[in-house]
């Protein structure tokens, strides 16, 4: 537990029974408050701890959210391994690898952005790291869009227009159902991340973040790393596993 309650005064239990002032509860005077300290926290340390724990808990819910899809993937990969191998061969490994590299580098630039806020680097430096991260994120989405376009062109998008020349049309359609659900949901998280970082860049530009207050940057960083990690699992599952089975 945080030790941030040093301001509290000891009072006998019955004190709370008497009428109290609504605007009471502020600690003893003589402490300069950070303008970003919300009224219900005792100090900045408690506020920062609450925010980071909140994001960790949220990421746990995200794991469970993606978990349902991973479960479906597991079940159907187990049910029709050959079809999944055949289908995965039609994914572009070059693009997938490139995107993996882009995301890993973007995690590095994000971490450098958090560090620049923690060390009170100039606002320009902070904004630079955030914008570079956003550019990597946009590049990832651009490549993803190219891949999706190719799938539409080749009619391997599930639905009435799905066409498959190989041995397992049903299993392949299922593979691509999962492919679009999983990568689509991941891309949606990337888009949300870009939105958060736009806001972050705008506020960083005004010099809001420094060694005393960098929680939003840190929390946004946690989210961004999580989205990267999801891709680290998606890439081998969709693109890599079973490719060596292909006879050609």
């Amino acid at each position, binding site marked *: 537990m945080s030790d941030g309650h040093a301001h509290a005064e000891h009072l006998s239990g019955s004190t709370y029974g008497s009428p109290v002032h609504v605007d009471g509860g502020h600690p003893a005077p003589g402490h300069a408050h950070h303008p970003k300290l919300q009224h219900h926290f005792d100090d900045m340390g408690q506020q920062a701890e609450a925010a980071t724990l909140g994001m960790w808990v949220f990421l746990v819910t995200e794991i469970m959210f993606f978990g349902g899809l991973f479960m479906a993937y597991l079940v159907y990969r187990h049910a*029709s391994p050959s079809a999944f191998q055949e289908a995965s061969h039609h994914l572009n490994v070059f693009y997938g690898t490139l995107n993996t590299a882009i995301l890993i580098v973007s995690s590095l630039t994000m971490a450098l952005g958090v560090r620049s806020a923690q060390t009170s680097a100039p606002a320009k430096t902070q904004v630079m790291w955030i914008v570079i991260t956003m550019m990597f994120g946009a590049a990832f989405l651009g490549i993803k869009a190219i891949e999706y376009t190719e799938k539409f062109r080749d009619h391997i998008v599930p639905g009435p227009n799905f066409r498959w020349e190989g041995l397992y049309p049903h299993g392949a359609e299922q593979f691509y159902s999962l492919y679009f659900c999983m990568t689509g949901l991941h891309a949606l998280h990337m888009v949300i991340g870009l939105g958060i970082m736009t806001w972050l860049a705008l506020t960083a530009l005004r010099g809001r973040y420094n060694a005393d207050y960098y929680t939003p940057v840190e929390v946004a960083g946690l989210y961004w790393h999580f989205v990267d990690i999801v891709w680290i699992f998606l890439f081998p599952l969709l693109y890599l596993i079973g490719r060596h089975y292909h006879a050609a």
Partner: protein
Amino acid sequence: METLNYLNNGHGLASWLLTKDHKRIALLYLVSITAFFFLGGMFAFMIRLELLTPAGDVMASDTYNKMFTMHGVVMVFFFLIPSIPAVLGNFLIPIMIGAKDLAFPRINLLSWYIYVLGGLFTLVAALSGGVDTGWTFYTPYSTAAANSHVITAALGIFITGFSSILTGLNFIVSVHRMRAPGLTWFRLPLFVWSMYATSLIFILGTPVIAITVLLVAAERTLHMGIFDPALGGDPVLFQHLFWFYSHPAVYIMILPAMGVISEIVQAFSRKNIFGYSFVAFSSLAIAIIGFLVWGHHLFVSGQSVYAGLMFSILSFLVAIPSAVKVFNWTATIYKGSVLLDSAMLYAFGFIGLFTIGGLTGLFLAAVGLDVHVHDTYFVIAHFHYIMVGGAIMGYMGGLHYWWPKISGRMYSEGWAKLAAGLIFIGFNLTFFPQFILGYLGMPRRYHVYPPEFQVLNIASTLGATVLAVGYLLPMVYFTYSIFYGEKASANPWGARGLEWEIPSPPPTENFLVTPIVTHGTHQYAPSREVGIV
């Protein structure tokens, strides 16, 4: 001059709709879930009306399907799941942990708006013709066959799920980071423990139902082959994913009620809880084991017999922490100075009805017997004993116990006792006959039945009418008390706990100064520190 409190600190609609005060948000939830409770009750009334006679004479079978579906969807997702957490939990947790608010007040308000948005989707689904899949949305019926507004209702559930997630997240972070100095984990009120366990289910289970209904929607719109066998999918996977959330969701409903009962039993027996740490840990045990029992819904869904046996054993295991609670409440009441106030009457009702509901749950967890009673009224009776006899009894008890704190007014104790009695009698008359009906073989979800079942069905409908009166009464006397009730003192019951040490109604900031806690917050007996710290 009237003291400034959270109710009169700011007037007008905007001061409520834009509030970040956890107590006002609790009241926003109270109003909205009450509306949904009566909406769901109207659907239930239509069901009971149809079942008065063996023939299907009130509505067509298709309409009947929509009635029980909407009843289930509204009651489960829009009343039972948010009921105690979003109303009493929101109001009480910050006060019980000695904080001014939850960790994230804005997210708390956002969760209410998300809840309302999800509710609107469901209302649109209801008004534009309803859903007929059953509240379980089983595939392939929900993906391939049903022509009703499945996607709208599914999106409503998807959206409102995020309100649960945010509430759970807020509670977990608050309990970890916002406790007053000296308020160690083992000095926390048991209500906080049970809400913490509930929050774990909120954050671990709800995302899974979210992705599941999203996949159902994707399958219906984009023809993705996830669950529909015609597209190569597996409908049993849907059942697994659905019950992975929806069985723990039963514990979302019952755990908070158990927390309420732990508080009431102590207050009206004037005794410390018997075996504090056992009761606290049994909440966590129920939350954890509750995640491992979902397969008992799939005994007749082609699940392997070995999986069935494992799920059967695990379902029996979850009865142990539940029984620990019942025994410990009983031991707390034993030789206590028992006061029979209305809140305590609800607690007594809860303990008895929950025990019946729990024990019949063991019938259903037995693989062999479940084959006989699966999808019959026996199941309906069992889970209504848990959800209505358990969860709603706890919710009503909690409302009566904390109403003076919430509203600052006393309600009429005589009327409250009458309502508690009517609810208890009406409930048993409604649902006990359904155990017999189910055992005799009456299936659920049919609106036509053989004439020999009519007597028991009439009893059930009669009971439902009494139950409805019992639920309407508190609406009247609570509303009356707001305007004409006697002003409540800070601690009208002579109970213990931080919430009874601040004025009724509490000031916006809850505490003038952060309290320092030097002993367990519920000291009815002379100081005796709990063993484990």
